[in-house]
């Protein structure tokens, strides 16, 4: 079971999301109303941490633990990114959750969030259905 390690990393990630209250609907409302630094502090420490280590990986030409060349993330632009991101922002304000926190909210005992997750899956499915008809 070589995937088990990702479960453990997920546990730590989920614990940080939960204990950092990034999965809290209250924190998300507070963030969008600019009434606290908390959530911005999470982003403003998470991103430089990631960036610093990616810089080190690149600079030192580090390989993965299995000896592969590290495949650096590349994101391509399309106008759909703007449209989709705005729609996701609306949903984030409503549910107080992005996809990661949905899983953590369910784990924390909010079973009704399972409905939100099912609806998110339905949203992804609907996007797949309409993909060719939507502006890219």
């Amino acid at each position: 079971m070589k995937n088990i390690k990702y479960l453990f990393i997920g546990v730590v990630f989920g614990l940080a999301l939960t204990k950092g209250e990034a999965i809290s609907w209250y924190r998300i409302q507070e963030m969008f109303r600019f009434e606290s630094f908390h959530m911005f502090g999470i982003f403003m420490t998470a991103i430089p941490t990631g960036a610093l280590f990616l810089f080190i990986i690149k600079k030192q030409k580090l390989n993965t633990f299995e000896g592969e060349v590290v495949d650096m993330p590349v994101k391509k632009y399309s106008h759909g990114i703007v449209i989709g991101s705005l729609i996701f922002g609306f949903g984030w304000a409503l549910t107080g959750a992005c996809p990661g926190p949905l899983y953590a909210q369910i784990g924390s005992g909010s079973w009704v969030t399972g409905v939100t997750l099912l609806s998110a899956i339905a949203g992804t499915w609907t996007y797949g259905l309409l993909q060719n008809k939507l502006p890219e």
Partner: protein
Amino acid sequence: MEIFYKPWPWYIAGPIIGFTVPLLLLIGNKKLGISSTLRQICAACVPANISLFRYDWKKDSWNLFFAGGIAVGGFLGGYVFANPDPVAISQSTTAYLHSFGLTDLTGLMPSELFNWSSLVTLKGFLMMVVGGFMVGFGTRYAKGCTSGHGILGLSALQWPSLIATMSFFLGGILFSHLVLPYILSL
């Protein structure tokens, strides 16, 4: 023992979240991203011959283990070692929520809004079902979410991810100020 129940400050949670990016890359050349799990579930359960869902999802099944781990992390942090105190949000946010008749601000989310019986009300339906739909639809359209664009993409200095993250926030800010008050008043 009390320390296990306390919430973590942003300067502890943030770096741990950010460290996931190099860790996943070094451990197995994996790219942090969670909205892709929604696509995976579609591909595994209801591919319906849609091109977006016709791929070998089992090859990427690591992210389903990762998502399962997040749920376990939520269980540990939000249930087993749940903070007994309400989330320490600012006074102005508390006053704002009180103004919509939300009195019980305990837990990580307001149980007065997110519960089974409110699902059949217009307000609950909009917040959970429509909100969830927009999260799933929007993140796939945007090719990523807060983790894939906001954390991984920005860490890798990808400008499309900067556009995406700015648009997440623009959407959320506009919606919170212009639309959400009407929904909370329902």
